[in-house]
């Protein structure tokens, strides 16, 4: 009888955690910018389209895009959408919503300091809304654990940009994220598909560090002002082929413009001989 009781107690102890007991991501995380720092923090000269599998529609958009457009009253405080916001400087707070009765996780929540954005990642089988449901900058997210990797799928994302150089994103974007914790480091991988502007998935990764001492810098009091005196009804743009800055990045780094603007084929090692030929031919 005693053996039975000990065995039962052990079984209960082992089963004390919920079936899905996972590594915790709760806490406050701050970005690290060793990767792609130039693009992610200050931004580079115009015309950086490297690493993005953009299609012809995206090329046309980028060609017409004037970077000062985001200074318009309507756009100054426009948040980056969820497929873009992690690419900039940010910190986010992560916490769990648990069912009081069962202590099972209903959802993960995120508060992102930049633009003060809120995210909910449903973990309880919440049904995805219909396609016509409102789209938001943070979209609709559901999550699932694969081992210790949290995989989050987000749809219903508002149109924005993948890069400030004018590579657009559409409202048909789907974002798949993988959150992978290693101690106090968090790796974040984003795989973006967009049938409107990308020819294949666009992959990015970022690192975050757990803040052992939080800070109070969580507010983002963005105000609309006339930053630069101008006609408020004027929208900056370039006619096709008239963008004087589109080749600036290629020129700055001595790259053929075809390689910078080439999309998916330029992302793979097989492109190296082509690049070599282009550069030797100059």
């Amino acid at each position: 009888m005693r053996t039975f009781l000990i065995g039962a107690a052990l079984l209960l102890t082992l089963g004390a955690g919920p079936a899905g007991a996972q590594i915790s991501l709760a806490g406050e995380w701050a970005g690290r910018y060793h990767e792609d720092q130039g693009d992610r923090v200050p931004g580079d000269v115009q015309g950086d389209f490297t690493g993005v599998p953009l299609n012809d529609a995206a090329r046309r958009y980028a060609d017409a895009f004037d970077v000062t457009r985001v200074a318009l009253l309507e756009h100054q405080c426009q948040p980056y959408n969820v497929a873009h916001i992690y690419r900039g400087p940010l910190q986010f707070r992560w916490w769990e919503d648990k069912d009081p009765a069962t202590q099972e996780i209903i959802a993960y929540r995120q508060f992102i300091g930049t633009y003060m954005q809120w995210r909910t990642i449903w973990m309880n089988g919440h049904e995805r809304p219909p396609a016509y449901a409102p789209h938001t900058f943070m979209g609709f997210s559901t999550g699932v654990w694969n081992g210790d990797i949290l995989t989050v799928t987000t749809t219903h994302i508002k149109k924005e940009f993948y890069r400030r150089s004018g590579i657009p994103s559409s409202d048909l974007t789907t974002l798949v994220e993988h959150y992978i914790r290693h101690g106090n480091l968090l790796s974040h991988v984003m795989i973006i598909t967009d049938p409107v502007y990308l020819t294949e998935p666009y992959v990015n990764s970022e690192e975050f560090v757990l803040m052992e001492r939080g800070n109070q810098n969580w507010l983002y009091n963005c105000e609309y002002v006339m930053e630069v005196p101008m006609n408020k009804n004027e929208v900056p743009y370039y006619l096709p082929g008239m963008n004087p800055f589109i080749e600036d990045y290629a020129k700055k780094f001595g790259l053929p413009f075809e390689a910078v603007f080439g999309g998916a084929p330029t992302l793979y090692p097989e492109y190296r001989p082509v690049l070599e030929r282009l550069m030797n031919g100059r």
Partner: protein
Amino acid sequence: MRANWKLIAPTALLAAMAGAVQAHHSFTATYFEDRTIEIEGKLLQFMFRNPHSFVHVEAPDENGAMQRWAVEWGGAGQLAGQGVTNQTLRVGDVVTITGNPGRDPSDHRVRMQYLRRNTDGFEWGRNPGETFN
């Protein structure tokens, strides 16, 4: 006492990043970062805000014609960490500003690198950490 720059540099970087906000535009795409201009004139407006603050100054251009210059500065959160508040500058202050000119000359915009108020010598941009992104 000598400053320990090995310690100051990372500390300043961390302090700067703590309040960092991504510009809604790329600085390098908007300004000529390899060029510098100086303007001196009367402050017309100080917009202490996010994503970036702006200072409007009435000052002559290279031809002597008076222009309203839009000088881009750090976000409110980042500047606050450097001791700048919405009361730091007042309309009517006479200031000298050095910075990167905008790529479109007709915009008369500048990215702030250094500011000096001529009446009391208040300065920004010369001390470690006085930068923005």
